[in-house]
């Protein structure tokens, strides 16, 4: 009996496409591809026949028409004579603004609450538990609406700030007054904060279509330079310490590097603050932060902070108790233990879920619709869509921009995540 039999000559049969695992995956992929293309074709065919029956076309040229409406909160210059495209940019900047403010504030509050929830103080930890559970288990829309109601119902109207001669004569205090050395006015129309102004301007450069003041660029450049100088000093001090065992005193050098140049620059540019003052119907001067922005910010921050607090708590609890005990044994105080030993290790656990919280916050910022904050959905997906009747184009553009924003945030955070990740060798 021959042990080695000739393997039967393989001839290709049609059935092998299904039954042979070598070919099956290709068959399946081709079927999926065909189904996908068919589905896509079906959708597009419907789309074009629908457009045809409604006598519409697919064109983005409406973006270059005059917008004609005003926006109350703009970071870039905008008037109602500008185009819909620019209105969209204003909305995009507003979305980014509230997302950035929200992420920063939510991180600060979330880390604080997360750490405090593990505190040995019974009252504080219980309070934080109540906060976290309360905010996590109720829709964020409710918190935004409540924050908005608080700002419009409870804060004083601008006219309550008015001081008339009769009131001075009678010694009556006005019903409301400004806070922070009379520089910030919190009213039911929004919060007026001082505005930074320069007497001398270095001119402007126009990048794309956004005019950017050279003053701002100069200030930023000096700040970055100072920070780099500060790090150089610290590095030098560490080098000296490693060589000699004695760390040289650097605080005055650091202080000078950090504060000196910027003060000099601001002085040279004639920097001053414009304080809001009451006049006519309203406060004038200063920058207006609308209540819708404040409410959206507050609502999103408190809601997301509750989730971040849980993430931070879980991260800290994931660090083994031995780390803390070892740190105590080395004589580090609890605060230093937390900041030097526990938190840096916990970060690795914390960052991935934190990224998704940032993404959630950015996406939830579209709830601006509830308080009529003029974000991307408010301009492009709201008024522009309405005035032009281009719902298809507007919605597609809107989704694409949000998608790009999300992908950008997650890739940026992933880069950071890779930087702090435990390097395995």
């Amino acid at each position, binding site marked *: 009996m021959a042990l080695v039999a000739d393997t039967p000559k393989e001839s290709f049969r049609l059935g092998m496409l299904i039954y042979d695992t070598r070919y099956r995956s290709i068959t399946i992929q081709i079927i999926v591809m065909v189904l996908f293309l068919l589905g896509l074709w079906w959708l597009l065919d419907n789309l074009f026949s629908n457009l045809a029956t409604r006598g519409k076309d697919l064109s983005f040229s409406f973006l270059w028409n005059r917008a004609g409406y005003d926006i109350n909160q703009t970071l870039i210059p905008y008037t109602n004579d500008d185009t819909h495209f620019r209105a969209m940019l204003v909305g995009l900047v507003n979305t980014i603004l509230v997302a950035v403010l929200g992420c920063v504030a939510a991180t600060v509050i979330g880390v604080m609450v997360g750490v405090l929830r593990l505190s040995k103080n019974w009252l504080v930890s219980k309070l934080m538990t109540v906060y976290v559970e309360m905010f996590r288990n109720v829709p964020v829309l409710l918190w935004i609406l409540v924050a908005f109601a608080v700002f419009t119902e409870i804060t004083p109207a601008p006219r309550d700030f008015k001081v008339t001669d009769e009131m001075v004569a009678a010694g009556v205090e006005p019903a409301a007054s400004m806070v922070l050395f009379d520089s910030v006015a919190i009213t039911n129309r929004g919060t007026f904060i001082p505005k930074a102004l320069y007497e001398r301007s270095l001119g402007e450069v126009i990048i794309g279509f956004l005019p950017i003041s050279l003053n701002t660029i100069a200030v930023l450049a000096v700040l970055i330079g100072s920070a780099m100088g500060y790090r150089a000093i610290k590095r030098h001090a560490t080098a000296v310490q490693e060589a000699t065992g004695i760390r040289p005193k650097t605080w005055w050098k650091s202080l000078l590097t950090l504060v000196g140049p910027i003060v000099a620059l601001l002085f040279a540019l004639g920097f001053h603050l414009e304080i809001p003052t009451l006049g006519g119907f309203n406060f004038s001067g200063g920058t207006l932060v609308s*209540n819708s922005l404040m409410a959206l910010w507050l609502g999103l921050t408190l809601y997301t902070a509750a989730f971040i607090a849980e993430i931070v708590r879980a991260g800290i609890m994931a660090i083994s108790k031995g780390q803390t005990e070892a740190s105590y044994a080395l004589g580090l105080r609890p605060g230093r233990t937390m900041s030097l030993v526990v938190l840096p290790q916990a970060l690795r656990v914390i960052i991935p879920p934190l990224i998704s919280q940032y993404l959630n916050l950015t996406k939830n910022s579209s709830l601006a619709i509830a308080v*009529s904050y003029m974000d991307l959905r408010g301009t492009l997906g709201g008024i522009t869509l309405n005035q032009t009747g281009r719902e298809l184009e507007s919605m597609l553009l809107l989704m694409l921009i949000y998608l790009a924003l999300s992908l950008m945030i997650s890739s940026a955070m992933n880069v950071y995540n890779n930087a702090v990740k435990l390097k395995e060798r």
Partner: protein
Amino acid sequence: MKKSVFLGTLAATALLAGFASAATLDDVKARGELVCGVNTGLVGFAAPDANGNWQGFDVAVCKAVAAAVLGDASKVKYVPTTGETRFTALASGEIDLLARNTTWTFSRDADLKFTFVGVNYYDGQGFMVRKDLGVSSAKELDGATVCIQTGTTTELNLADFFKVNNMTYQPVPINTNAEGEQQYLAGACDAYTTDASGLAATRAIFADPENHIILPEIISKEPLGPLVRHGDDQWADIARWTLNALIAAEEYGVTSANVEELAKGTNNPEINRMLGTEGDLGAMIGLDKDWAKRAIAASGNYGEIFAASIGESTPIGLARGLNAQWTQGGLLYTPPFR
């Protein structure tokens, strides 16, 4: 395991899905129900009561059309629409008729491809301010904060008005009338602007209406009317002439109380033609002879509807003004029924 749910729903959806053909009239008759787009809630014009029954000035138009077409004023499905969803709902065939205080403009007519079948309320944009603000004209509003409803023509009018008069303002956008009231009453804005009828309706139900005034300037023309899709002229005719019948009925003194009696025949040939005792106008628009009689009987003639939903005896308390018959100095003027 739960895969069944998904496919089941899809199948159910496919079975439920209606297919709108070109002739809206046939669809409505086949369905036995008129689908009417209305406001999500504006007291007097369209708002559901505690039992979910829709009532108001715009709702009456829907009822009249349903009565004319289907013979039953209650065969209406009301679809609440927002400023954003209303045009899509109509264009996609989700609703047969949009009666949601919508301003007749060139671009909506031509570019969005809708047919406005007439005007049921001549309105204009106005301003409401607190009395103690000490303002008596809209020209004094320089620098003011103005609450404004988005998704309407009002924001464009407002921008134009302040631009023409070289004034600045701070817009506070809001989504619904309810929000606008809240903001305005809380003092978050100096002035509230919307259609004058809306302002009056809003002011009427304040706790202290006497402390608020509506400024004399009307900064825009806002002819509000029901609309249908382009391309179905028969359906547009039905809606147009139902509205006209309501207006003409008031002119000729036909009311819901006496329509039955008058339908037996009068000595006014115009009334006879309208109510179907003479000739057969109904057949020309694909309906029977009694269509107008039923439309009027549904909730009365134009004057009765006005008085019952937004007139001076209601909390909203609007005067007829421009919306009086042409014989009384108003703009309501129907083409003849012949």
